[in-house]
C-alpha cells in the first residue's frame, strides 16, 4: 500500500469513529444535552476533566516526541532524575488531588440533599424499577418503571435494590449511582424545564440488564400535583363489556398474586404495580411502547421480549380473551 492510500484510510477511519461516537450525543438519553442544576454542575466538571486531560495528553506527547527525535542534549536533560521526579510524581499528585477535591465538592450537594426536596424511593429489581412516592397526605403509593418529577424542585431519591447490584442513571439529569444490596444510596436531581428524558440501569444485573430502562417526565408544579393526585387514587373501574371481561380474566388467572391494582382484590407485591398502567409512556421498563397490542404480546410472549424475566408466559387465553385482558389493562389510566 502506498503512503497516500494509508493516509486516506487513516483519516476515513478516524472520521467514521468520531461520527459514530458523536451520534449518541443527541436525544432523550443524551449525557451532553443536560437539564437541571446538578446536571449543569456535573457537565462543568466533565468539561474541566476533559480539558485538563487533553492538556496533559498533549504535554506527554510532546515530551515523548522529544524523547524519540530530540537532540542528544535535550534527551539527556529529560532523563535527569529531577525532571522525572517533578514530572512523574509531583505533577500528578498535585493535579489529581486538585481534581479529586473539586469532584467531591461538586458531588457533595448531590448526595446530601437540599431542603424542600421531594423524597422518592426507587428499588432496583430484576429487571424493572419499583418506585414509591409520598402521596402528599402523609402516606405513600407505589408505581413502576417511570418517574414523574416537578420542574424546579429538587428530588431526592433513595436508591436500594431487592436482589443484585443495579445502577440508576438518567444522563440528562446527571448523576449515576449504584444500588447496592444492604445499603441505601441517595441521589438528588433537579429538572429545570418540562420534558421527557430516558435513563437506564448502568450496572450489569443479569441477562435482561440491557432491557432495564426507564422514562422520566418533568412536569410544571401544578401539573405534577394533579398527576400525583391521580396516581395515588385507586384504579378506574372497567367500563365496556370487553374491559369487564378483561377484569374477570385478570382475577381468574391469578394475576393479583404478583401484581397490585389498587381498588381491586389484586394485591401482589412480586411484580410491578399496574394501577395506572395505561398512563405510562412505555411498558416493561421502556422495552415496549404502551398500547393494548404490546400488552397482549407481553402477556403471551414475554420470554421472547425479555428472556429470563420472572413472569410466566400466559398462553392459556383465546385471542378474544387475551385482547379483552389487554384492553382492560390499557384502560387503567
Amino acid at each position, binding site marked *: 500500500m502506498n503512503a497516500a492510500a494509508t493516509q486516506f484510510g487513516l483519516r476515513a477511519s478516524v472520521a467514521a469513529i468520531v461520527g459514530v461516537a458523536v451520534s449518541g450525543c443527541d436525544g432523550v438519553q443524551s449525557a451532553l444535552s443536560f437539564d437541571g442544576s446538578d446536571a449543569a454542575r456535573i457537565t462543568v466538571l466533565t468539561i474541566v476533566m476533559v480539558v485538563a486531560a487533553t492538556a496533559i495528553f498533549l504535554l506527554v506527547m510532546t515530551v515523548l516526541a522529544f524523547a524519540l527525535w530530540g537532540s542528544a542534549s535535550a534527551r539527556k536533560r529529560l532523563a535527569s532524575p529531577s525532571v522525572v521526579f517533578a514530572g512523574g510524581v509531583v505533577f500528578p499528585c498535585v493535579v489529581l488531588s486538585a481534581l479529586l477535591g473539586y469532584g467531591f465538592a461538586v458531588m457533595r450537594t448531590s448526595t446530601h440533599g437540599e431542603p424542600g426536596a421531594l423524597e422518592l424511593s426507587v428499588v432496583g429489581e430484576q429487571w424493572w424499577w419499583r418506585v414509591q412516592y409520598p402521596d402528599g397526605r402523609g402516606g405513600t403509593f407505589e408505581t413502576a418503571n417511570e418517574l414523574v418529577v416537578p420542574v424546579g424542585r429538587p428530588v431526592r431519591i433513595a436508591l436500594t435494590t431487592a436482589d443484585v447490584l443495579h445502577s440508576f442513571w438518567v444522563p440528562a439529569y446527571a448523576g449515576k449511582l449504584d444500588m447496592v444490596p444492604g445499603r441505601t444510596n441517595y441521589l438528588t436531581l433537579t429538572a429545570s424545564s418540562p420534558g421527557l428524558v430516558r435513563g437506564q440501569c448502568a450496572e450489569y444485573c443479569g441477562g435482561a440488564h440491557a432491557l432495564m430502562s426507564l422514562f422520566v417526565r418533568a412536569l410544571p408544579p401544578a401539573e405534577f400535583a394533579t398527576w400525583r393526585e391521580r396516581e395515588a387514587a385507586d384504579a378506574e373501574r372497567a367500563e365496556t363489556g370487553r374491559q369487564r371481561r378483561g377484569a374477570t380474566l385478570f*382475577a*381468574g*388467572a*391469578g394475576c393479583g398474586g404478583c401484581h397490585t391494582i389498587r381498588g381491586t382484590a389484586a394485591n*401482589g407485591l*412480586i411484580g410491578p404495580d399496574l394501577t395506572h398502567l395505561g398512563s405510562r409512556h412505555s411498558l416493561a421498563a421502556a422495552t415496549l411502547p404502551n398500547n393494548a397490542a404490546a400488552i397482549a404480546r407481553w402477556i403471551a410472549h414475554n420470554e421472547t421480549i425479555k428472556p429470563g424475566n420472572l413472569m*410466566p408466559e400466559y398462553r*392459556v387465553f383465546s385471542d378474544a380473551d387475551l385482547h379483552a385482558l389487554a384492553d382492560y389493562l390499557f384502560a387503567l389510566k
Partner: protein
Amino acid sequence: MNYERYMPTLRQAVAVSSVTLLALFLGVALTVVVGLYSVAASAGHFGIVEAFLELALARSVSLHARAEPPSGLAHDRDRITLGAAHFDGACSSCHGAPGRRVNPLHKAMLPPPPHLSASDVLDQWQVRELFWILKHGIKYTGMPAWPNLERDDEVWTLVAFLQNVQVMEPAEYRRLRLGNAAEPSPLLDGDPEFRTVGAIATACTSCHDNGRARPPSELTPSLAGQSATYLADALHAYADGTRASGIMEPVAAVLDDAEIALLAEHFSGLEPIAPVAPRQQALWEQGRRIATTGLPEADVPACLSCHDAHALETFPRLSGQNARYLRTQLALWRDGGRRNTAAGRIMAVIAQRLDADASAAVSHYFEQHRLADPPRGPDA
C-alpha cells in the same frame, strides 16, 4: 526340526483367509436372500442361539442398570396399589397374574413372555435390573419400553408391585386391581348420556375415586368435583403425548373426543371427597402461609391466587387433593418436566422456585383444604 517349510507364505495365508471369509459371507447371504433361514416363532431358536441370547440379555441388563431404588419400595402400599392396577391393564395379558393365566395369544410369541407370579423368573433379576427392563424394554422381544421415559416415578410403582407379586394371593390381587371399580360410579344410574361412557368411567375408578371413596392409592389424583375443562385438557394432553405419563397416555389415547368430554363432565359432577384432617401442625402452618400469602422473597405468589374457587376453569382445584400426588407433580416441574402445555409452562416458572420442603408443606395443606364455595359445574 525345520518347521519353516510347513509354514505358509504371507500370500498364501491372505489368499486362503479371503476365500474362506468370502465363502462364509456368500453362504450366509444366500441363505438369507433365498429365504432358507426360518423366522418362524413357532419353530423356536436353536439351543445355542437361545443360550447366546439369554447370556447377552443377562449381561447387558446387569451392566446398564444403575438406578438405585427409593427406600421402602417393597412395602409402599400406595406404589403397590397403583402398580397392580397398571399391571392389570398393561401387562397381565402377556405375563399373567396371581390366579390368572397368560393369554394363549401371547404364549405363542418368541421369546414367550414368562408368567411372572407362577414362575421364578423374577428371582434372577435384582431390583435395579427390573427397573431398567421395565423402563427400556428388551430388543428382539415383545417387551416394550415405558411409554414415556420421563416418568421414573411410575416405573418404580410397577417394580414395587413385582417385588410382591410372587407371594400375592389371587384374592388380594383381585382387590388391588379392581380398586373402586368393584361398584359403578354414582352418576351412571341417572343420566342416559353418561351411561354411554359407563364402562370406561367404571374402569377409571380402579385407580381414581368414584364419588364415594378416595382413590385406592395416594399417588393417584382425585377427579371428583374437578374442573371439567381441566379434566378434558388433561386427557387430550395425555392422548397426544404432550403431558408425560406411561400410565395415562395409553389410557387416554384410545378415547375419542366425545368420550373425553363425557368423562370430564361425569367426574366434574361428582361430589368432591372430604378433605383429611391435618396431621402435622407445623408443616400445615408452613403450607398455609405459602398458599395464602406466597413467598415474596422467592418470587412465589400465593397458590390460592390461581387455585381457588374463582380461578380460570383451565387451572385445577387443589383442595382435598392427595398430598403425595401433588408432591409428585411439583417434583416433575422441578426436574424440568411438564413444560409442553401452555398451562404447564406457567406453573413450571412458579414450581421452579419451590424447593422440596415448600412442596411438601403446600401439598400437606391442600390435602385438608376445602374450598369456600363448591367449584362451578360446566354449565355455570
